[in-house]
């Protein structure tokens, strides 16, 4: 096809304002769509991170004590509860806990390699549980061993308890000991005494999904500690395959049969992992949906604007088109003319848009500490907008190409 840019550019000079407006609109659309795509992608990436938990059969009970018990009394009750839970026909295993993956925030400690170190090496989410913790959550042990029942310590209300042994996530092990020889090594997690790594699991998500947690993604440690806080604790329960619903029905009944001096919120005291995951990613999902809606509306409006203005131009130039057709231009020449014209305008708009997109991103980086956008998003945005322009111009261009040469002889 023989493209003649010069006549097109000359013609465009007669529609300066219209051309400029379309180009500007494309530029702004590109800038916003790129940034929105970038936000959507970042949020969706959060949503799809693995927790390490056997999510299809694990649920969590938030159990609060309604009695003023001493630590030994709480401990006896917790042990009795655990026995009762594990005996249920639909339950595979249960563990006491102070938090669970995707809880949406919780206990975390700075980690150092020596007790004197003032600047922490990193930060780790802290989980506590007994020897059944790994099996209950369904965590995959990739090195070392599980806790032994005799290693499990007792932690009373707001008591600082540290264990000499710990199981860590692979992410934490690699961060502390990049050489890959973490097993058997020790670290300090704001504790006066070291904890020795006896096992490594992979993966294990942190409790939080916020920016700080994402900066330390997957770095977590487990201490063999039974929480006997007088305020309450979490029971994490794993149902046998396919028996989640039954286990969630049985568990609270079994607990209340043990003792009624407890509070399990009827509304959200018992949650399966689908609910937990859905809740914790509320704002991430919401932001992705919102940006998605805005992108679609924006692209639709820009496309409609291009259709509108081009239709107007076609209407204005019917006579000229007729003259060209009479002088021997084929229908496809006319079609190519309008497609090329749109391509030139879009290209100019897109060029400006790329600058705007990066400027906007840079501004959000400094103002809101968002991440820097990679080139890929801009690339996708450019292609989408160029295609959108060509698609939008197609209908008016086709109509233009069907203008009969006879039009040349008509006055208007």
């Amino acid at each position: 096809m023989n493209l003649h840019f010069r006549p097109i550019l000359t013609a465009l000079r007669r529609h300066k304002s219209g051309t400029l407006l379309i180009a500007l609109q494309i530029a702004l659309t590109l800038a916003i769509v790129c940034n929105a795509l970038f936000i959507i992608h970042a949020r969706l990436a959060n949503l799809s991170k693995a927790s390490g938990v056997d999510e299809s059969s694990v649920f969590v009970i938030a159990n609060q004590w309604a009695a003023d018990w001493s630590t030994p009394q709480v401990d006896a009750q917790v042990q009795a509860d655990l026995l009762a839970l594990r005996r249920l026909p639909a339950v595979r295993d249960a563990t006491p806990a102070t938090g669970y993956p995707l809880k949406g925030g919780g206990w975390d400690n700075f980690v150092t390699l020596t007790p004197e170190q003032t600047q922490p090496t990193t930060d780790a989410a802290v989980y506590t549980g007994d020897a059944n913790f790994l099996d209950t959550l369904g965590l995959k042990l990739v090195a070392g061993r599980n806790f032994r029942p005799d290693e499990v310590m007792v932690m009373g209300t707001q008591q600082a308890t540290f264990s000499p042994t710990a199981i860590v996530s692979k992410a934490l092990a690699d961060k502390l000991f990049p050489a890959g020889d973490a097993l058997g090594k020790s670290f300090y997690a704001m504790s006066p005494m070291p904890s020795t790594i006896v096992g490594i699991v992979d993966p294990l998500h942190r409790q939080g999904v916020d920016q700080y947690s994402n900066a330390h993604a997957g770095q977590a440690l487990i201490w063999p500690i039974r929480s006997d806080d007088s305020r309450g604790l979490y029971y994490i329960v794993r149902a046998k395959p396919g028996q989640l619903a039954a286990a969630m029905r049985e568990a609270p009944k079994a607990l209340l049969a043990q003792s009624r001096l407890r509070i399990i919120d009827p509304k959200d005291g018992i949650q399966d992992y689908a609910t937990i995951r859905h809740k914790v990613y509320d704002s991430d999902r919401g932001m992705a949906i919102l940006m998605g809606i805005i992108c679609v509306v924006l692209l639709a409006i820009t496309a409609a604007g291009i259709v509108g203005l081009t239709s107007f131009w076609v209407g204005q130039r019917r006579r000229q088109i007729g003259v060209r057709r009479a002088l021997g231009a084929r229908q496809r020449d006319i079609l190519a003319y309008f497609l090329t014209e749109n391509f030139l305008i879009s290209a100019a708009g897109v060029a400006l848009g790329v600058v705007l997109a990066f400027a906007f991103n840079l501004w959000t980086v400094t103002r809101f500490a968002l991440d820097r956008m990679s080139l890929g998003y801009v690339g996708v945005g450019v292609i989408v907008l160029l295609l959108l322009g060509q698609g939008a111009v197609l209908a008016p261009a086709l109509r233009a190409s069907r203008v009969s040469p006879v039009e040349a002889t008509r006055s208007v």
Partner: protein
Amino acid sequence: MFAYYLELALRSLKRSPGLTALMVLAIGFGVAASMTSWSVFRAVSGDPIPWKSAQLFVPQIDNWGPNGRNPNGDPPSAMDYADATTLMRDHRAKRQSAMYQISPSIVPAGAGKHPINVSGHAVYGEFFPMLDTPFQYGSGWGASDDANRAQVTVISSKLNQKLFGGTNSVGRSVSIEGRDYRVVGVLNDWNPQPRFYDVVNSGGFNSQSDDVFLPFQTAIQAAIPNDGNTNCNAVPKESGFIGLQQSECVWIAYLAELDDAAAVAAYRDYLQGYAREQQQAGRFGWAPNNRLRDLRAWLDDQHVVPRDTKVSLLVALGLLLVCLVNTIGLLLAKFLRRSGEIGVRRALGATRKAIYLQFLTEAGMVGVAGGGLGLALTCAGVAGVGWVLPKDIASLARLDVSLLVLTLLVAVLATMLAGLYPTWRASRVQPAWQLKSN
């Protein structure tokens, strides 16, 4: 004359329904997106106590030293027990209160009733007059109740409904964590958003209201533990709640009421003196590094307005801008298509001003129609915002008259603004040229 322009505009809009619909849709969506995000932003960035926020101050004391400061050099955002209780004892502000979050269990009267868990705060008596909390029945407690560690409580109207069926329960007793407390006051609906008195623990927004308030020292004595955040730079030497009170861990929020600049300056001096004393006593190994921010500066410093809310508002405003550029282009096309008509009108004696009025009326009409659509979409947007945003924030977005008026105003003004350039171009049409080519 205006009626004539209206008729002309209507006729012209009817002549190209597709283009008109396009403009109305663009304005409607653009305005609705911006107004919906604005309603959320307005809700979260509002001043929770506008009549007093300039007199409420949050003191921060640097009890952690250089290693515990944030990158800006700010000290911890909450207080430890020693500093909070000393500041309360010295009582240098007009009113003040240290406070911490509690989550005690309450056993309703009557056999067989199940215990319930409520959230609340342990505060000093001055908390209530300082924050102008509205009372349905009774009032807060006095300084003597604080000093005597009286077993008194202020409860929310919601809890009063649950426990006493909404009747005046002042003087009656509630069993909290196994002890009996006498009700001295019942609050009216009071759940300020953001929860400015304890931002550190609520993260700013919490749809669950505080149901119970106990005297600070009474709660400490009853060993009702802190249910909010506890941040430590080192592990407490002793275990348990007592150990926490003796540690440098920070878990207590603090508010002081200072009436004028002189009082603020005096309080600053006092904090400075206190920190210097602690330095001389050897507890702080560093120079005083206090902060005293008023409430608005404090909310800003704590980033109470979520980042997502700001980013969505920006993106929505960008959408509105694109819609406006789009409208300029379409109006331009629409107006210039009628160059012939303009030429005839001008030749028959219409002034430039008349052309201006005619086309601005037309733009205004598109704006009104777009505003109408925008209103409907904004209503839908505010109603549906809970579907995409977290509940604590979405529930704050409200549809009120001012938002509706603003929606319509933005739509009409924006469209008229967008119509200015096309109208100017229309008014420059040369009648002679148009008539000749016809």
